[in-house]
């Protein structure tokens, strides 16, 4: 009797878990839609967030035009960025079809793809290539933002790479130049290395005038701190994993980087409150003219150049982010994190709906609209835009942006990566609070080994996908689709 009860209870529990394990049907290809307004009267549901003002532009210009032309009603579920992931994951895990198109950050795609709720775009593309042009992104950016391992799952909505902005009114001021020459015995130039930046930053740090040398993002959540630290790390040759999939955060270079990044010397160049600065605060400091130099992400550039949003819009220029002078070669190494969201199609919706979603995505983030967006707002993430002579003339930063995008390094697109990031971020926070960098970074490194092990990776022989491998994946994908990519020649 008792065992029967147990069996019944277990059956009950299993039945409750059923929605989680519902199998996914394969998706048959559809004919290209060519007729006039074939989607008349349909609805397209998009879960989105107002991350950056650039995306708002999409609503202002693109969406009304699309609705007008297609007869489709666009329904946005607009959420705070931090609220998006739980909502999407819940729907995804249960196999829900609450929305057709979703805004997915590169860090989330690995998990969602493994769950089988990201539609692979190959078939849709081959059936109706249209305006999407996947070859029109840099291989690095495309591999990071639009692919989950070897699968093409999204069209990038923006690509964020580290950028460096500075004030031309300060750097070009003869008095400042003379004063700098006197103090440091060299010419005042835009810094190329972090050491130079520290000097220039110190020079411009004048709290009594409400002016500081540099501003960078920190923030309390662990992962954010890591995001920025890794810019410094990359330039010193720190990588995520070695070829044998061993994490590399306990190395001497990583420890040096950590010490520099959260060290008091570096913090002293920045306005008070730096420990809690996130995107908003650093942006604001720069646009209010409080800092001479500013490390940012590419998507923020249009905001820096908008005279209504920035008092120094006229005096803002861009340069490659500083790097580390390799003592052996004398070469300046500069590498940055590349990240960003893409629009992806929910695999759990009907075929008709997928077709509709694809049709919209081609338009929303195809070549044409990207041009429009760049022309109007100076935002660019497609190669054709970043290299267009007319646009570059109008928006000089596009060139630097393009260069950064080509070398940007993506985070591991693994489901366990956020936890690893969290471990390093935590170590960095503790170093900032006065902890010993060497031991804390070593501990974090050990934690990551544990996290990866726990995920079953070493045992099951799944390897970390390196940046180089990602580019290979991108090239293979392009070949598969019959496309030529400039970087894959």
């Amino acid at each position, binding site marked *: 009797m008792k065992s029967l009860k147990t069996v019944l209870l277990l059956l*009950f*529990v*299993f039945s*409750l*878990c059923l929605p*989680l*394990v519902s199998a996914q049907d394969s998706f048959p290809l559809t004919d290209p839609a060519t007729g006039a307004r074939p989607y008349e009267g349909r609805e397209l549901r998009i879960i989105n967030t107002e991350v950056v003002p650039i995306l708002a532009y999409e609503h202002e210009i693109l969406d009304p035009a699309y609705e007008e032309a297609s007869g489709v009603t666009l329904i946005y579920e607009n959420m705070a960025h*931090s609220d998006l*992931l*739980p909502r999407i*994951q819940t729907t*995804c*895990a249960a196999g829900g079809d609450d929305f057709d198109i979703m805004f997915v950050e590169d860090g989330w795609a*690995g*998990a*969602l793809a*493994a*769950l*089988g709720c990201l539609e692979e775009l190959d078939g849709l593309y081959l059936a109706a290539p249209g305006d999407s042009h996947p070859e029109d992104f840099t291989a690095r950016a495309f591999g990071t933002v639009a692919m989950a391992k070897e699968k093409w799952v999204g069209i990038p909505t923006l690509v964020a790479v580290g950028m460096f902005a500075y004030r031309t009114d300060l750097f070009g001021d003869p008095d400042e130049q003379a004063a700098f020459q006197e103090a440091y015995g060299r010419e005042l130039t835009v810094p190329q290395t972090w050491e130079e930046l520290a000097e220039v930053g110190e020079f411009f740090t004048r709290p009594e005038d409400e002016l500081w040398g540099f501003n960078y993002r*920190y*923030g*309390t*959540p*662990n*992962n954010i*701190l890591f995001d920025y630290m890794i810019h410094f790390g990359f330039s010193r040759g720190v990588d995520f994993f070695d070829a044998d999939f061993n994490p590399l955060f306990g190395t001497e270079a990583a420890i040096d980087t950590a010490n520099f990044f959260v060290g008091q010397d570096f913090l002293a160049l920045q*306005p*008070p*409150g*730096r*420990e*809690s600065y996130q995107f908003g*605060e650093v942006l*604001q*400091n720069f646009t209010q003219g409080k800092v001479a130099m500013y490390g940012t992400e590419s998507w923020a550039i249009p905001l820096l150049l908008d005279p209504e949003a920035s008092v120094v819009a006229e005096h803002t220029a861009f340069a490659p982010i500083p790097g580390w002078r390799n003592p052996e070669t004398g070469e300046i190494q500069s590498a940055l994190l590349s990240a960003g969201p893409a629009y992806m199609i929910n695999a759990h919706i009907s075929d008709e709906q997928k077709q509709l979603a694809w049709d919209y995505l081609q338009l929303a983030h195809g070549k044409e609209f990207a041009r429009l967006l760049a022309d109007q707002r100076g935002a660019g993430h497609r190669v054709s835009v970043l290299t267009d002579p007319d646009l570059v003339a109008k928006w000089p930063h596009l060139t630097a942006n393009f260069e950064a995008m080509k070398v940007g390094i993506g985070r591991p697109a693994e*489901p*366990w990566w*956020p*936890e690893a990031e*969290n471990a390093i*971020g*935590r170590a960095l*926070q*503790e170093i*900032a*609070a006065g902890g010993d960098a060497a031991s804390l970074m070593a501990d974090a490194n050990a934690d990551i080994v544990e996290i990866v092990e*726990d995920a079953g990776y070493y045992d099951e022989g799944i390897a970390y996908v390196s940046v180089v491998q990602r580019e290979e994946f991108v090239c293979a994908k392009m070949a598969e689709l019959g496309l030529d990519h400039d970087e894959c020649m």
Partner: protein
Amino acid sequence: MKPDVATQPGGQSLSRRVYSLTQRHRHWFFIGPALLILLTVVIYPIVFSTGVSLFRVTFASTSRPFVGLQNFERMLGNDDFLQSAYNTLYYVVFSVSGSFLLGFGAALLIRRISRGRNILRLVLIIPITMAPIVVGLMWNWMLDPLFGLINWFLGLLGIPGQTLLAQASTARLMVVLVDIWQWYPLVFLIIEAGMATLPRAPYESARLEGVSSWMIFRRITLPLLRPVILVALLLRTVDAFRTFDIVRVMTDGGPALTTETLSLYLYRTAFTFNKLSRAAAGSILMLLVIGLISAMMFRFLYKDIEVG
């Protein structure tokens, strides 16, 4: 008296038997519907979570092997889980005691004044009427190192800008203070309302006998208010245990996990770290601990209050 046919045991009419039956089970008539809803909306998720916690279910894999209690084991051996459990304990101890002292104090004081009592009471309970997420954002704004009023004020006093929320030494305290700010009105309301029901006689006689205010408070007010105090403490403890919104908005658990609560950690485990089963196991553990604590508090409570 000779009983007529209708009174023979076998001769009861159906409607009478139905009446008799409904009389015997009449409490289900009242409790049943609510219980049914609660069973579906509460038992279901708990059973579901328990089920999930026994498998390895992640957001990142479609294979779901049965792993028994491994998730519980891993959770208990996880430093971050233990750290957030410690933080939660810190919140419970300081937020509960802080909001209790403040609320109790305000309730004691407001009984000593007459004019303006209503308006003061209304102002004092404003925080509880605000959404926790709003409270968190508002205090972020107050504490902002650039434009926050607090730093502006400190600046007037000649103290340079502080990043109270970004330093491991102060962040936890700040979050607790905000939590106290939001929740002391609950204690205030309960205690004040409880005081309104206190009998007058013991006070009057004590006053006449020249007993000091402190002794009156200790020997009369406290013992009489014991049940009310325990209720306030129970509610606050339970709420403090699941602190989530305020912390998520203010510090998101940082810096270095010093402000991470269990709720937040489990949320992160599930949605950021993609470990559904681990989070489910953690929630079950958390439920067990809270259940244990509340059961202990209940024992105190039941001693004082005859529950009919």
